[in-house]
C-alpha cells in the first residue's frame, strides 16, 4: 500500500545491492531523481533493466552501479552514443557490463508477461536476425493449434520498478498522462514499486490518455518536482534538449564525467540541490 516518503528512504529501504531494478519512462517521465539517489547511495551489482537506457543509465553504468544490463536500445536520443555505456561494453570501464539484449517488441512483451504472472510471452520476431545467437532468452515455440513456429521470451519480474508520474492523490493512487510507454507493465511486473511524482493533489482531473495506478500496487511515493529532468513531464515542463546535447561532451571523457558526477550528483544532498548546482554552472557558461 502506497506510503508517502522521502526519496532517500524509499531507495534505502527498497533497493539493495545485487537487485534487479527497472527504471522506466519512454522518453517521457524518466525517473532521473531516483536514478541519482541510487548513485548517491552507491548501490552495487545491480542488474539494470530498461528498454531505452539513456542518460541516467549512462550515469549509473559510469559510476559502477551496474553488473548487467537488460535492454533493447541504448543511446542518447537524437544525439548519438552513450559514451559511458560504450566504454563499459568496449573497454570494461569502470567494470565489465554483462548484456542481455532484445528488441523493443521483445522487452515490451517480457514486461507484459511479468505483469500477468506468466513465465513467458509469445511474439513474431527475431528469426533471421543474429539476436538469438547472442541472447539466450529467445527461443522458438510452436502454436498448438496451427503448428506455426513463433518466438518465446521469458517474463521480466524486477525486484524493484521505479517510475516518475505527474501526480499522486491523497489515497496513494498514481496518475500518468500523455505518453505512458511501458510504465504500467514495468510497475505491475515488479516485486516493489517506487514512484516519484511532480505533486500530490486532492483529486485527479480527466487528462488526455491518462492512466491510474491504484495505490495497492505502489509501495513508496516520493514528491520530486522536476524529478524527470532533463526528460519532460507533460503539463509541467518540456524536454531539455540542450542538456541531452551537452551530455555528449560531459560523458565522452572519463575524467570529466567523474568530476561532473562528483560535483553535481555525489556532491549534492538531493535532486533539488543537484538542479540548483547545474543551473549555477549553466549560468556561468
Amino acid at each position, binding site marked *: 500500500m502506497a506510503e508517502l516518503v522521502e526519496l532517500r528512504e524509499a531507495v534505502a529501504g527498497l533497493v539493495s545491492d545485487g537487485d534487479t531494478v527497472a527504471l522506466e519512462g519512454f522518453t517521457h517521465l524518466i525517473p532521473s531523481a531516483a536514478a541519482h539517489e541510487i548513485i548517491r547511495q552507491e548501490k552495487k551489482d545491480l542488474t539494470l533493466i530498461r528498454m531505452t537506457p539513456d542518460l541516467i543509465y549512462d550515469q549509473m553504468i559510469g559510476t559502477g552501479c551496474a553488473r548487467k544490463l537488460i535492454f533493447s536500445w541504448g543511446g542518447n*536520443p537524437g544525439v548519438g552514443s552513450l559514451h559511458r555505456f560504450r566504454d563499459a561494453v568496449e573497454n570494461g570501464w569502470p567494470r565489465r557490463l554483462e548484456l542481455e539484449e532484445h528488441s*523493443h517488441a521483445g522487452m515490451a512483451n517480457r514486461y507484459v508477461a511479468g505483469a500477468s504472472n506468466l513465465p513467458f510471452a509469445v511474439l513474431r520476431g527475431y528469426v533471421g536476425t543474429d539476436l538469438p545467437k547472442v541472447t539466450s532468452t529467445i527461443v522458438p515455440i510452436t502454436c498448438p493449434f496451427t503448428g506455426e513456429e513463433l518466438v518465446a521470451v521469458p517474463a521480466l519480474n524486477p525486484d524493484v520498478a521505479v517510475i516518475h508520474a505527474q501526480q499522486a492523490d491523497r489515497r496513494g493512487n498514481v496518475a500518468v498522462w500523455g505518453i505512458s510507454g511501458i510504465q504500467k507493465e514495468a510497475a505491475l511486473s515488479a516485486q516493489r514499486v517506487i514512484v516519484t511524482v511532480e505533486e500530490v493533489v486532492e483529486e485527479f482531473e480527466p487528462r488526455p490518455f491518462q492512466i491510474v495506478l491504484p495505490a495497492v500496487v505502489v509501495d513508496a511515493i516520493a514528491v520530486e518536482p522536476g524529478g524527470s529532468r532533463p526528460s519532460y513531464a507533460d503539463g509541467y515542463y518540456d524536454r531539455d534538449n540542450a542538456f541531452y546535447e551537452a551530455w555528449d561532451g560531459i560523458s565522452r571523457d572519463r575524467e570529466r564525467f567523474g568530476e561532473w558526477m562528483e560535483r553535481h550528483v555525489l556532491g549534492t544532498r538531493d535532486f533539488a540541490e543537484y538542479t540548483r548546482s547545474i543551473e549555477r554552472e549553466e549560468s556561468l557558461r
Partner: protein
Amino acid sequence: MTDAAAREYTTDEMMTVAASRELQDGAVCFVGIGLPSEATNLARATHAPNCVLIYESGTVGAKPDVLPLSIGDGVLAEYADSVVSVPEIFNYWLQAGRVDVGFLGAAQMDRYGNINTTVIGPYESPKVRLPGAGGAPEIAASARDVVIILRQKPRSFVEELAFVTSVGHRHGGDSRNELGYGGAGPTIVITDLGVLRPDPETRELTMTALHPGATVEEAKEATGWELKVAGELETTDPPTEGELTILRDLKARTAESRKRA
C-alpha cells in the same frame, strides 16, 4: 529542369525529399527517428496530409509541428489521434499488420537490405558498440513495405554485416519468405546519391535511379560490394520549390524550438 537547375540544394535535402515522396497519402507509417522522421513529416506537410504517423512511444496519428529529437517528444502526443502503451503499439499495430510502410535508417546495410544497428566488430569485443535493435527488427519484419534511408558510403554499404539486427531480403531470392513474416521487406533504399530497388528475382539491391548530378562511378565507389546498376537509369526529379521551402521551414522551426527548450 531549368528552374530546378537554378535551385541550390544539398544532397541530404535531395535524399529527404526523395524519401518523402515514397509515403502515400493515407498510409499508416511506422517512423524511425532521424532521417525517417524528417522525410515522413515533410510528406505530411506536402502531398500526404492524411498519412498516419506512428512512433514506437505509442503515438498514433502524430502531427508534430517541429521535428522530434526523440521518438517520445511531447509534440508527438499533443496532436495525436491516439496514444497507447508500448506493448499495444508493437502487438496491436505493428505485429497486427496495420502498418503499411516502415521508414528506417541504419548504421550498416548489405546488398539484400539487411541492417546492422548493434555492433561494429565482434559482438563480445566490439570496435564500436551501437545502440542496438530498438523497434527496427519488428518494423523490418511486419511493416508491409520498408523504406530505408541511408547515406551511401563504403562503411555503411558493406559486403558483410558485423551483425544482422533487422532482416531485409536475407540471403536473397525467397529466403526471407521462409521466416514467415507479414511484411515484404525493403522495397526501396533512398541514398544521398540515388535510389536502389531489390531485383525481382535475386532480391539484390540494384541502383535504379540517380539524383541529379550523381554518377554511376560515385555510386560504385560509395558501395562496399560490387554494385549492380539497372539497364536504363532514371534521374530523380529534383526538389521542387515547395518541397525545399517546407523542408527548410520545418528544420528552421525545429532548430528554433530546441534553442528555446
